[in-house]
């Protein structure tokens, strides 16, 4: 059974990331920028990276991949981001996670990313929730977010290339 109910926005916990933003574009356009590879490639990642468009993969269904490689603007180093989608409710809700991935320094516990898009006509309000961050995940990411993705990918590369 697939649950088509959009979950409520959670109350922020100390160990979670919770961000809300408003964008000056209709919801179906913002949805497109999260779920279509050519548009996702235009913005994902912090200021010091860009996305390699050839690496973007979005299989828009539960169990599908949502991933891409970020490339450092200076060094050219690749920082892969790979998530498995768990809930897809166009054009309002997207949920993905890294579930218990085995890594060289231990298991990665669930880290869930959830994105809500709220329709306000010409404006779309987005809520992004990420967490909880467990101590194990903290170990993985002591060198930062990008470094963690790098390590996760090194492990994944052994399996599904």
């Amino acid at each position, binding site marked *: 059974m697939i649950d088509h109910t959009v979950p409520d926005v959670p109350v922020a916990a100390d160990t979670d990331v919770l961000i809300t933003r408003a964008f000056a574009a209709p919801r179906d356009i913002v949805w497109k920028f999260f779920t279509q590879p050519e548009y996702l490639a*235009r913005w*994902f990642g912090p200021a010091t990276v860009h996305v390699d468009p050839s690496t973007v993969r979005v299989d828009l269904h539960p169990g599908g991949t949502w991933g891409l490689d970020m490339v450092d603007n200076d060094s050219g180093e690749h920082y892969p981001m790979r998530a498995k989608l768990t809930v897809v409710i166009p054009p309002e809700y997207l949920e993905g996670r890294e579930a218990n991935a085995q890594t060289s320094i231990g298991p990665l516990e669930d880290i869930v990313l959830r994105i809500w898009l709220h329709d306000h006509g010409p404006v779309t309000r987005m809520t992004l929730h990420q967490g909880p961050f467990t101590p194990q995940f903290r170990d993985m990411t002591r060198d930062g*977010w990008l470094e963690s993705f790098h390590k996760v990918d090194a492990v994944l590369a052994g399996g599904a290339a």
Partner: protein
Amino acid sequence: MPTIETDKLSTVFAALADPTRRAILARLASGDATVTELAEPFAMSQPAVSKHLRVLETAGLISRAKVATARYSHLEAEALREATEWMQRYTRFWTESLDRLDDALAQYMEAHETHERQER
């Protein structure tokens, strides 16, 4: 091999994962308190609260000092600040990404509107 700093922050996050311990920290933010005072707002025995205090002390989030016959818990803000800074890195990742999304959407909307005007 994990560094000493990594071990420490892991302990901090494990300590913060519990809502009762977060509530205890929130209470200590307004001043030092004894076990009796800390147990009061919770439906919890003093030994249970003491157990939480030991976890918080091990994580470096509080220190405990004996004053006369009472033992007072004191919030150690530095450990909490380090954990917060780590969380802020994730927030920064998304803030910078979403700034770029904002720009990309603006460009898209502008191109789209220009296109519509030309079609009219």
